[in-house]
């Protein structure tokens, strides 16, 4: 691990929060995409 000096806490927390938010956004978009895709298949089969 490299030495971040006296700003280690700030840098790590800023990166952590940002990457978590980005990952959350991607995960949420992908998941919702899958759910809606499956749902559409079902609806198209039922009412198609």
């Amino acid at each position, binding site marked *: 691990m*490299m030495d*971040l*000096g*006296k*700003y*280690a806490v*700030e*840098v790590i*927390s*800023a*990166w952590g*929060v*940002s*990457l978590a*938010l*980005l990952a*959350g*956004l*991607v995960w949420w*978009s*992908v998941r*919702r*995409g899958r759910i*809606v*895709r499956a*749902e*559409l298949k079902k*609806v*198209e089969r*039922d*009412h*198609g």
Partner: protein
Amino acid sequence: MSIWSYANPRKFLDTTEPWVPRLMWLSAAVLAVGLVWGFFFTPEAERFGSSVKIIYLHVPSALMAINAWLMMLVASLIWLVRRHHVSALAARAAAPIGMVMTLIALVTGAIWGQPMWGTWWAWDPRLTSFLILFLFYLGYIALWAAIPDPDSAADLTSVLCLVGSVFAILSRYAVNFWNQGLHQGASLSLDAQENVADVFWLPLLVCMAGFVLLFVALVLLRTGTEIRARRITALRARARRAEPVRA
């Protein structure tokens, strides 16, 4: 063949769908290069120490927060003028991404502000403008969610986006007038005399490219999702209308 042929939802889906995973991986790769480069292989800046590393997330997210709103503005205009549903749905798909970008810019800014300016939050013009931009995103998303009829929702949110853009620019200058800030001036503009040194600038550029790619990939993915969701609602509504006849 004109670009408008992609306004057909079917054609839009068929064209963009294969690109979504490709763009996702590409953006992940570019982001990984830029972020690893920025985090491990850049020196510390004189005044900022290692806190300068926050720039690789702060600046690209701030950039995309504004670009996402611009994209929504263009998409809203296209919807109002040419009535292409894909355009309205793309605007809707971009809003949460822009909101998250604004949030990242605000949070990293606050964390950076603590050691640099000695405070988590200052009513600095740029911080304040971003907070207002965040509120605009909230209102826009809430309005989309509140209106049941899809076409009215698209119309009303488009109008809000146009009016909101004017007021966002107005707020930007009003806030400037109200409080001269702590933020450094445009140190990233291309023509500025005092520019950021290349050691920081190059990885930052890679990160910005990664954020742009990620934004495009996410917008395409989410627009596809919105198109499908719209189709589900339409199919269900048709089935409901057909029901009494069958009974």
